[in-house]
């Protein structure tokens, strides 16, 4: 699909930034879940 630079730029910003924020949010959720299931134990020190 051929698109002009303006459309390309807007699409990149929306999909790129949106996708990045979504991915980072999903990863932060996963990390929160991991921390809950595998809490830090003092003896690990």
């Amino acid at each position, binding site marked *: 699909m051929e698109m002009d*630079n*303006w459309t*390309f*730029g807007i699409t*990149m*910003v929306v999909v*790129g*930034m949106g*996708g*990045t*924020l979504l*991915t*980072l*949010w*999903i*990863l*932060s*959720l*996963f*990390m*929160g879940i*991991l*921390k809950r299931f*595998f*809490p*830090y*134990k003092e003896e*690990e*020190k």
Partner: protein
Amino acid sequence: MLDAILGGLQGLVAGFAHLHWSNPIMIAVGCTLLYLGIKKGFEPLLLVPIGFGAILVNIPLAGLMDKEGFLRIIYEAGVLTEIFPLLIFVGIGAMTDFGPLLENPKIFLLGAAGQFGIFLTLALALALGFSKLDAVSIGVIGACDGPTAIYVASQYAPHLLGAVSVAAYSYMSLVPVFQPPIMRLLTTKEERMIDMGIVKKSVSKTTKILFPLIVTVIGGLIAPKGLPLLGTIMLGNLMKECGVVSRLTKASENEIANIVTLL
């Protein structure tokens, strides 16, 4: 005999005769980078090889970047094949402690700050008339990530690889020049003297081991084309956190990282 001697003497000045006006400029740029790296201490691991490389390739008739020149061989073996950025990322992963990030997972969202830089630079490149793929390659410079900039440029705009590499690494090297005055401008002396304290380590080893696996799978499924870079940095981090391959970890963060940085 006189002709032979004159021919020989001509050979001694051939380099000077073939100098293009751009060569002395680039040699001066290389010298400037060397000065910044050696005398000022700005990112010497980057600027010293880059600066000297800029001098080497701008001496005419040396042929270092010709078909069988040694720099061309290294370039084709490591840069065009995209192997060097990936190996660097293994080293970076092995050197990185994601503990503070895992301590407070909300910090993940700050990772979007780098993306702002990319898309702002992308928009500027498009506005300046670059083609879409060229603009994409230029845009990655905005994230201040050298290996990724090289990787993307080698895929989408190989003809811009040299310019993108020099721009990306020069930009990164100048961060210690520009940031301190801005920080001093935006903060007070009292604020800069605040003791932040030590971050309490409250992340289990299991979490630290599972983190690179989860990031690789989730990130790879969402953006498969980014998996080479993402996977290698997570490989380095997994090696570091699992603790059972310390030789490989030490090699990644020392020998491999240093050799690839030099090349």
